[in-house]
């Protein structure tokens, strides 16, 4: 039996043809003479072959562009989906404006809460004739600053590059969250999820092109966890998710956006219209059937939770249920949604 055990351990190497000739010969001779090991060998071979059924997937082409752009080999190439990049012509100006607003807020907060003197550096001095009159708050570029969201203006102007976004919920019981990011310095904004500044920042991050981390999907996960827990999502969060659904290139992220809209829907009644519009648009024109399927499910759930579905939404569901060239699952789900609607509101 010990022979059998030792030989069976070598069988995977026989499959990869990595046994030396002598061991291979010994193993084959044993398999021919031992019924139990012969069964084992046949089962292993079948398993090995079955593993071939997992197809090889081509990496998305945008991944190469992303990599080459990251190491400075080429510029990011535009795709057929509108990305979240700001317009290049206004990049430096808008970023400067955002720096002023965020740093200005921090200046205000700093003067209210601390007596520390900070030394101006050249790192955030703005250049160009249009902005020479603006006096940016002066902080060291290496400084890490924690700001209270209540002390900040909720308005974010332009589309500043923010990177290394981090989410922290240090104490889940205190009703406070923190969002850190790098702009010209590392900034962490802390406050209640319902603070307008926090809502605006999260909405902005969801729509930003953060090249390092986390991905937009992780941001959406965090938004869903935070606002499902607190139960008071701001309508702007739903609007930002709707924009992600419209503009995001990756279908997995679009699905996450729908799932999050779904989980927030009962708590964000006033957002019904933009959410519904985004879902209808996804159902109408998203190229991925899984996204369209999610959109149908979300619309059905909106209706069953008491939110009004307008005639356009119902027409779209009818159209999808009857569309011969639509994915079968989407058609079935659309028909089910219509059936649910007719039970809720029999005509």
């Amino acid at each position: 039996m010990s022979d059998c055990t030792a030989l069976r351990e070598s069988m995977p190497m026989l499959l990869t043809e990595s046994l030396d000739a002598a061991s291979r010969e010994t193993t084959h001779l044993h398999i021919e003479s031992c019924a139990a090991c012969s069964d084992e060998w046949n089962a292993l071979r079948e398993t090995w072959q079955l593993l071939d059924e997992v197809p090889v997937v081509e990496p998305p082409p945008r991944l190469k562009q992303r990599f080459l752009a990251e190491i400075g080999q080429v510029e990011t190439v535009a795709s057929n989906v509108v990305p979240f990049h700001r317009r290049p012509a206004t990049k430096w100006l808008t970023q400067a404006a955002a720096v002023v607003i965020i740093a200005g807020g921090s200046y205000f907060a700093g003067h209210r809460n601390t007596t520390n003197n900070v030394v101006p550096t050249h790192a955030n001095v703005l250049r160009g004739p249009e902005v020479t009159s603006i006096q940016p708050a002066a902080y060291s570029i290496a400084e890490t600053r924690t700001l209270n969201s209540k002390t900040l203006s909720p308005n974010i102007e332009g589309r500043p590059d923010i990177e290394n976004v981090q989410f922290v919920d240090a104490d889940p019981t205190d009703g406070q969250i923190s969002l850190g990011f790098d702009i010209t310095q590392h900034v962490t904004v802390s406050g209640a999820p319902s603070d307008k500044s926090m809502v605006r920042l999260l909405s902005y991050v969801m729509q930003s092109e953060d090249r390092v981390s986390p991905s937009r999907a992780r941001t959406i996960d965090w938004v869903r966890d935070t606002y499902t827990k607190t139960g008071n999502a701001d309508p702007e969060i739903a609007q930002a998710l709707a924009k992600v659904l419209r503009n995001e290139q990756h279908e997995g992220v679009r699905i996450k956006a729908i799932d999050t809209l779904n989980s927030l829907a009962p708590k964000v009644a006033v957002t019904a219209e933009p959410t519904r519009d985004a879902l209808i648009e996804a159902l109408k024109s998203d190229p991925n059937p899984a996204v369209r399927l999610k959109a149908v499910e979300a619309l059905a759930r909106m209706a069953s939770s008491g939110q009004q579905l307008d005639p356009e939404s119902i027409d779209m569901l009818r159209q999808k249920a009857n569309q011969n060239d639509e994915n079968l699952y989407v058609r079935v789900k659309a028909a089910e949604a219509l059936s649910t609607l007719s039970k809720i509101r029999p005509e």
Partner: protein
Amino acid sequence: MKHLSDQELMRIVQGGDFSPASEIYDRYSGRIYNFALRFLKNAEAAEDATQEVFVKMMKHANQFQGDAKLSTWLFSITANWCRDYLRKSDNKAKETEDVLVQLPAPSDQSPDRTLEQRENEALIKRALQALTPEQREAILLSRYQGLSYAEIAQISGCSEGAVKTRVFRAMETLKKALVMDTRGGDRCLTALP
């Protein structure tokens, strides 16, 4: 660039010239992406892994030893990334759903065969996820990347004996999940959780 060996390309990169990046990416991105995808069962994470592995390769090119195989080095970085990803407990549950996101079936294949293939694919992916990360890493590198046990040992930071045991145990688990442990060889579609 296509006529240059991996080592020659890496020497150029080590000299501060990133122009071979595209060629190296073309040679290895498919393998790296598919390894990460099968390891993590999450397409977004696999994209992040691929991106970060190649960026790291360029930025730390000097750590590559000229006589080593580039594939072994790249898989080491990838396996490390995937292990770190799984260590973060909140990532464990983020597997991508497979339903309906696959490509349409080839037209020369019968619908029955397509359905069977998709069922098998889903079953195998679930079976792979049921393995320990160490076993999964070993079987993916052995079965799908064709690496030797010595190379896998180098990537996984363990002995060849440990790799042998991991592959054996992985195959035993997969066999039980995918193929009935009898001579009949009927599929056991309900064996997995």
